[in-house]
């Protein structure tokens, strides 16, 4: 396989900023000033950290400036609160309504702004420029819709049936999301609808595009989050047909340590990651339970050393010390996250955000849309005797490998490449279902091949 990281760009390109601006301008034109007869939907594919939220804020401002009132649909309460917070601070001139369920209080960060109003009934928010809620809440809104425009955020995480329930509320919509993240899912059988364009368990965007083939998705071409060390790998492994690049160049993002390494493998991995953006901290091969105590304690020790070694993150935004709240630990399962949290508490690392800056420890599902300076990832296949569809899911690995601005340290048992090679390839194929690329198996191989160059063995 050609190494995706060293593959040269085919021709000289405009600067990342100029390329991204050009795309954003086209998107805003299509959204705010659609041509006569243009499709009713605008779809924007955004790879990790490509300025999706910034785009949503700009589109909201321009639509309101053009005299429109706007509804925004996000998928989780966290996403809604983040968006409210961001919109209210970036656009203090807008009035923002936060529609929420009666049994769920919005987060304090969302409510601290004077231009934000929260309510459980949409009628109480009728005067607001922008009303934001989850798709679950919007589905219950009965009112004759006063909105012509909607923005659907994280649209690839939204299920087709949810869009079916809310689409009556708006005439036109901007759909923004990351096709590489985790797909929506259900625990009940849906085989009978497989291959139908409106399969209710599909992602909303898949259904929308199937029924509106004239919509050409836009693509944000630059990741501002991922460093130059990560964007080429993430692009090649997870977005093989829709490549993107990093907004910063090699050397623009660095990590420096105040404390010299103590000679341990953990410190060697920290240094490797600081220098190259990646490290694979590899434990001896062994089949383990999910909450592999050794791997968990290595993850915790790595976080401890990241804090103890006085790291500073230097970037285009200046130099800031690496504090606990800029570090995340990503796992596949909740019990793994719980085990890591317990181990961190044992090492005196703060994990409770209500008590001050704390390390985030969560599953891939919950880390979607989040951003940190350094991440420590417990590899989903570490110690497993077999790979399952869950562990191989492309989106899971993609989320875990694309949360960081500086560096990512992966902790894993040796033997994953062999595990992948021995994985039975007997997947069923449903007629009419578009094959999702890349395949998780292939993506895992690509990431592993790259990590092998940054391996630190732990004995």
């Amino acid at each position, binding site marked *: 396989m050609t190494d995706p990281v060293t593959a040269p760009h085919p021709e000289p390109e405009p600067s990342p900023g100029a390329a991204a601006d050009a795309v954003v301008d086209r998107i805003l034109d299509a959204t705010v000033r659609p041509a006569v007869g243009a499709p009713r939907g605008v779809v924007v594919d955004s790879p990790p950290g490509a300025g999706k939220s910034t785009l949503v804020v700009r589109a909201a401002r321009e639509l309101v400036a053009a005299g429109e009132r706007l509804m925004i649909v996000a998928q989780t309460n966290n996403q809604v609160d983040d968006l409210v917070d961001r919109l209210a601070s970036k656009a203090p001139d807008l009035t923002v309504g936060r529609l929420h369920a009666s049994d769920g209080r919005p987060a304090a960060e969302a409510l601290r702004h004077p231009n934000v109003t929260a309510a459980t009934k949409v009628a109480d928010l009728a005067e607001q420029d922008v009303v934001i809620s989850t798709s679950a809440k919007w589905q219950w809104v009965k009112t004759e819709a006063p909105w012509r425009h909607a923005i659907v955020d994280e649209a690839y995480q939204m299920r087709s049936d949810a869009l079916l329930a809310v689409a009556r509320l708006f005439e036109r919509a901007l759909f923004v999301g990351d096709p590489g993240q985790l797909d929506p899912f259900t625990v009940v059988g849906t085989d009978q609808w497989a291959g139908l364009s409106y399969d209710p368990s599909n992602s909303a965007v898949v259904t929308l595009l199937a029924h509106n083939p004239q919509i050409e998705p836009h693509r944000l071409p630059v990741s501002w989050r991922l460093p130059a060390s990560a964007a080429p790998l993430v692009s090649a492994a997870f977005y093989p047909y829709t490549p993107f690049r990093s907004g910063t160049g090699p050397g623009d993002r660095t990590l420096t340590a105040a404390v010299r390494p103590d000679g341990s493998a953990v410190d060697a991995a920290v240094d490797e990651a600081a220098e190259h953006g990646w490290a694979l901290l590899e434990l001896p091969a062994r089949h383990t339970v999910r909450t592999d105590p*050794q791997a968990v304690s290595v993850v915790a020790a790595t976080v401890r050393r990241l804090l103890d070694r006085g790291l500073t993150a230097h970037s285009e935004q200046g130099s800031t010390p690496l504090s606990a709240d800029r570090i995340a630990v990503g796992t596949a399962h909740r019990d793994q996250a719980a085990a890591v949290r317990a181990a961190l508490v044992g090492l005196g690392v703060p994990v409770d955000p209500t008590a001050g800056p704390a390390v985030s420890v969560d599953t891939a599902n919950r880390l979607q849309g989040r951003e940190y300076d350094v991440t420590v990832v417990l590899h989903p296949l570490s110690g497993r005797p077999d790979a*399952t569809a869950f562990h191989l899911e492309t989106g899971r690995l993609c989320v875990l490998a694309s949360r960081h601005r500086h560096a990512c340290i992966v902790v894993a048992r040796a033997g994953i490449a062999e595990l992948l090679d021995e994985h*039975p390839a007997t997947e069923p194929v449903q007629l009419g279902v578009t094959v999702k*690329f890349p395949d998780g198996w292939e993506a895992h191989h690509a990431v592993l091949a790259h990590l092998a160059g940054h391996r630190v063995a732990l004995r």
Partner: protein
Amino acid sequence: MNVSHIGPPEPLAQRLAELRGPAPQRSLNARALAALAANPGCRRRAVLDAAGIDKGAVAQRLGRPAPFGQSPFAIARGTMFESRLKADDYAVLLEPLRRHLGLPSDGAAPLAVPDLLRRSGPAVRAERTAAALAEAAADPSAWTLLDHPLLRLTVAGSPAYLEPDAVVVHGGRCTVVEIKSFPVLDGSADPAKVGAAARQAAVYVLALQETAAALAGTTVAPGPYAVQALPGSPELSVLLVCPKDFSNRPTAVSVDIRRELATTRRQLARMTAVDELLDTLAPGTSFDLAPDQAGLPTRPVAELADAVESVPAAYGPECLSSCELGFHCRAQARCDDRVEQLGRGVRGELGSIRTVAGALAAAGPAAAAGDRESDEAAARLSYAAALRAEALGGCAG
């Protein structure tokens, strides 16, 4: 599909022939190659398949024959469907191809069906196919149907010959057509069968990529997402032609096989590692059944069992429906008390515990202390056992 290995005996081929003994080599066809992906971790299957050994005969001799077979009704139905499609100069087959490939209706562009020398030997046929493909690809406006072409694919250093049902060439590119007798009902079909057909077709596409590369004097480009754009290169979608609904009329559906192609490519590349597996075998190991003049095996069962046992298997219950040795390996797994007899997924919860007795001991009250990791697995098991006993009111556990 009648396919065989042909070529100068290479050292690897020589070693494999010794394992097989004088029995005729079981040919590796596309279905067999695709089946390698069903359990790529099984060394036993890898060695026996690479050596072309009749696993069914081995299983029979070991006393646990494979229960596989095809009903004569199913065979008759398949044959009837394919012959119906190809009757009257492919009239019935052309109908769905027309819809899917844009083949113009009668007269506008004649369909060439070159003679592929089906009565000749495989090497000649493969050469003829390659020549016909080159000729057909040279004229982008022509429509050519290659009926049962023979393709050459190098597997583990020796050539295998594969025979797709049909290949259509137009616009300088070709499309694999695979005829199956399972129905497409209201636009959907049995996903397991479509998956198997896609893996089989992926082998043909790979062989066609090799053929096109050979014609262009180059090699197949590496990388899972590499696109080959040579004269005669295969499309990465194939056409499945199946009975429509409950009728005998055909319908064609396009199946994207890029994922299967990537998997097949990697699995076949791994087959070269078979000589490493052979290195671990004791000298003189043989799976020869030593048939007498009547063809009945005379090889002592215990001896044969030992030979089979000397190559480790990766048994899982899926093997029962995909490998002739499945029942034998299950008996072994049960005999060895291995947890895999309950399914592959079970191991994920048991960590490094490999036996039923070991797991039950860990679940028991007096679990022996091991290292932290096995403690963790044991602690979970014993917690589960306590919950179970509590729920059953002390009558179990």
